[in-house]
């Protein structure tokens, strides 16, 4: 086999692999992008009931209620609020007044059903999205 033909083979092989990969990536990205919204953005946009997204903000003080495995609380960006229910064990760092990200969808009753509450390593950590949402609503206070 001449070097030229070998290079042709290599090129064909790589192009096929890359093509398959690109097709997979594009379809997967289309179906699986999870957008991040603050309660204000949720109020502005009308989001379909089955659309999965991430909701971020602060856990409103005094809003957490527990009934067995069901937890109800309110996420706020201090401008708008949204009620959330979650069934399961909350991450260790979940606390009132702290930043939180919940992934799930809005039910027909307008309550956000969270399937996942994101855990954090570090209590000083503020998810960048939450910080941005708070800044946009003019509620950001720099700690330092």
């Amino acid at each position, binding site marked *: 086999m001449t070097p030229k033909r070998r290079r042709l083979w290599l090129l064909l*092989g790589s192009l096929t692999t890359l093509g398959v990969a690109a097709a997979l990536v594009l379809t997967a990205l289309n179906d699986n992008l999870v957008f*991040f919204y603050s309660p204000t953005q949720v109020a502005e946009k009308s989001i379909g009931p089955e659309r999965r997204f991430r909701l971020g903000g602060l856990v409103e003080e005094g809003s957490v209620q527990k009934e067995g495995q069901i937890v109800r609380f309110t996420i706020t960006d201090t401008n708008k609020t949204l009620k959330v229910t979650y069934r399961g*064990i909350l991450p260790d760092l979940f606390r009132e007044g702290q930043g939180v990200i919940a992934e799930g969808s809005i039910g027909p009753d307008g309550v956000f059903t969270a399937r996942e509450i994101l*855990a954090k390593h570090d209590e000083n950590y503020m998810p960048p999205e939450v910080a*941005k949402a708070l800044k946009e609503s003019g509620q950001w206070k720099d700690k330092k």
Partner: protein
Amino acid sequence: MIPELGHFALILALAVALVQGTLPLIGASRGDLRLMALGRTAALTQAFLVLVSFGALTQAYVTSDFSVLNVVDNSHSAKPLLYKISGVWGNHEGSMLLWALILALFGAAVAIFGNNLPDTLRSRVLAIQALIGVGFLAFLLFTSNPFARVFPAPADGNGLNPLLQDPGLAFHPPLLYLGYVGYSVTYAFAVAALLEGRVDAAWARWVRPWALAAWCFLTLGIALGSWWAYYILGWGGFWFWDPVENASLMPWLAGTALLHSAIVVEKRDALKSWTVLLALLAFSLSLLGTFLVRSGVLTSVHAFAQDPSRGMFILAFLLLVTGGGLALYAWRAPQLQGGGLFQPVSREGALILNNLLLCTLAVTVLLGTLYPLFLDLLTGNKVSVGPPFFNATFVPLCAPLFAALCVGPFLGWKRAELGPALMRLRVALVVSLAAALFAMTMIDSRSTLAALAFGFGVWLIVGSLASLTDRFRSGTLRTIPRSTLGMVISHASLGVVVLGSVATSSWNTELMQTMKPGDRIAFAGYSVVLDRMEEVRGPNYIAERATLNVSVGGKPYTVLQPERRLFTVQRRQVAETAIQTNLLRDFYATLGEGDPKQGWVIRLYLNPLAPWIWLGAALCALGGFVSLSDRRLRIGAPSRRPSSLQPAE
């Protein structure tokens, strides 16, 4: 006094690194032996100085010297000794110091074990190592000084993040860094080769042990991190496709490709410029991983509070290292003439396919990880790309890789036939098809995909071991080269990992229940009773402990005691899972919040084959170490035997 000594040693190390990064380079281009010899002395001196600095910080932690800010922020006098020590790298400054230390130690290792390297190559490699070191030492000294003092010294510290107070996580960063930083050596070798304008079989033979060592440590580091996530996060999962996990997977994929393409350079003198490129990319991806973790630009389960200026520094350094390496590559690589010709169906062809697929996988992970960043920059939309994306892209691309993996070792160099190779694999084919059928009919008829993946796992194990059958029959199993043995172990253990992850993620049983003491529930054929709740005191925490009596068929089977620990210093709760394993499945229990009136939330999982994931990963790394102990690599002699004498396996 001692912290100042550490600080001073760090400054000296930077000065030494500057010398080591410049003079040997000049010496190598002028052919000045004295300047070149300087590289070795400097590398050893630098390693010693960074070691002193690291020792000084460790001393501050062990003795709880609260006049050092870093110790105040991350330690507490009541902490167990192990976590006082692991606290050294359980924070930004300390972990960067650990990085710099490992970098310097790798430099020293090249200086010590590099006796058989040509003078110019060795001095260039050491100089490049030192230039990377300059970047990190400057980063430490100018933005993240671990020795900053605080006055007046507080009476006690703030304690280490409780999630990090865990044996698994104590050793995860050092192992991961040994992997990440190990690729700095292959990077340095690649840049040095480009400067010399020469890549040959001898070069590949020198690079391969370093690539192999880095790969082994990275494998162990990733496995340990995944194990930690499995038992501490309490979701029963082991891999979350989180940006930080992806950050460690990308260099692993590129590094695995490098490991294989270096074989082609060594044995057949082909794929030279590609191998050099991979060596450059593996380290660039390691740096990218560090940047992603350290800058907090991506929302991650693992994200730590970050200072953006530090992120910018690493980003600039990343661009310099990657850009510089690639520019040099673009300039010099065309000079690297490939040697051996080969047919598409051949060992070389199989290794190219391996590289092609591994790199595609790495690119897929890279896209999925960075896409939210791009979209945010371009449109301001915040998105996340989660497990569904990776399951839809990564997993299908693994199928051809696994299919080809067992066939490759049966193909000869230069030119081979597919038929005879498949004939020798017929037993493996039949066994794995039977396994897939068994999974489809007996275990789970709903998920064809899981059954197929199960079949692939069995194929990897049996197909890899099949390459030993001829040797077994002829009784020459003992004479098998260690590198071949290592390959078989690593390939087969990949199958073990696949079986473990498929079984755990597809066929696990899960139950969440609110229980009061005395309550009994049935779970997957077991009977579970919440016997009692009690309070226990640890060295620096108070825990709520549940005692679950598990019985099967009326006979006591095991006792599980999950806890919720409240760390008194930080006022933070951490759940401690209880896992009972018989190596075939994990019985896994976590305790949620609760009180005597309402009861406690208990979550139970039965994870089949879960231990195989980490067992397999450990075996995979073991295979690497076995291969590393091969005599040819240990001696590293650049002997140039004709390739026909090389064993075909």
